[in-house]
């Protein structure tokens, strides 16, 4: 089976970066930073933490680059690293400040342009989800990852990801309960 030109291009960049070409690594950053941000944002609570996780993730990836086999998917490998960096940040924050949850959830990076009521109820509902459930539903419904990919990324079985998604949906469905139709 022949590989796509994008994949071949990416492999070339990875090999060059492994030989110490930082410009090639810069090209890999350009290719993957948006997706990496989305992965991180689904796990951490704030935009700032997501940025930190993305930077940490790329740095870890750069350090571990010589251990990466170029015939594998660079994106999947990178996203696992970024997810781990995001989980580390979440754990550190949890230890440092257990009360910050409701405040940080309530300060998204960008006003999504929704009505205040819908946003308020969504934010409130998100605080009632467990950290893992929130990550799973965002990775699935917002970023379009499959259960198996989410499982690998978060280090949980596929069935657990499926179950978390189901429970998170039920919770958000209940919280938002037809509010759209009223607005």
């Amino acid at each position, binding site marked *: 089976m022949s590989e796509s030109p994008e994949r071949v291009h990416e492999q070339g960049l990875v090999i060059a970066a492994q030989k110490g070409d930082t410009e090639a690594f810069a090209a890999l*950053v*350009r290719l993957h*930073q948006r997706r990496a941000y989305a992965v991180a944002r689904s796990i951490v609570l704030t935009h700032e933490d997501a940025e930190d996780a993305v930077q940490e993730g790329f740095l870890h990836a*750069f350090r571990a680059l010589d251990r990466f086999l170029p015939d594998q998917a660079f994106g999947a490998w990178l996203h696992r690293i970024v997810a781990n960096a995001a989980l580390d940040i979440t754990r550190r924050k949890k230890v440092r400040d257990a009360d910050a949850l409701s405040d940080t959830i309530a300060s*998204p990076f960008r006003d999504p342009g*929704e009505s205040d009521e819908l946003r308020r109820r969504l934010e409130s509902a998100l605080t009632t989800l467990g950290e893992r459930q929130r990550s799973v539903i*965002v990775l699935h419904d*917002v970023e379009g990852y499959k*259960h198996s990919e989410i499982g690998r990324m978060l280090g949980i079985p596929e069935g657990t990801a499926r179950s978390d998604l189901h429970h998170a949906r039920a919770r958000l469905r209940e919280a938002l309960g037809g509010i759209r139709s009223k607005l």
Partner: protein
Amino acid sequence: MKLIHGDGRDWSDDEVQEALRAHYAPPGGDSYWASLERRILTRVRAEAAREWWTYFPGWVRYGVAAAAVAALVVGIATWQTSIAQERIAYDEILGPGSEVPILTESVTDRSRSQREQTLRYLLSH
């Protein structure tokens, strides 16, 4: 245990999904991504320029340097000890009077025994 089939969606999940997408929408402008890329690469380039010893925290660095000096001192001491031991071993084998050739001594012994034999002959006759 409740088994979950498919992705468990119903019609109202579309609005949940839409609300989530709006809430988690990534920053939009290209300038934002260019700035994030710059910050990532600044850290990566700094990492690439790091010397190997900087991976150790300060006190570990001093510890490693002290251990290296100690290892050097021990190495020199061991080397000198082995030279001294070698010299002593040679002395033990060759003896303290090793300056006198061994052959000369045996010649001396031989001439002494000849002298004794001559004396014994003269006394017996």
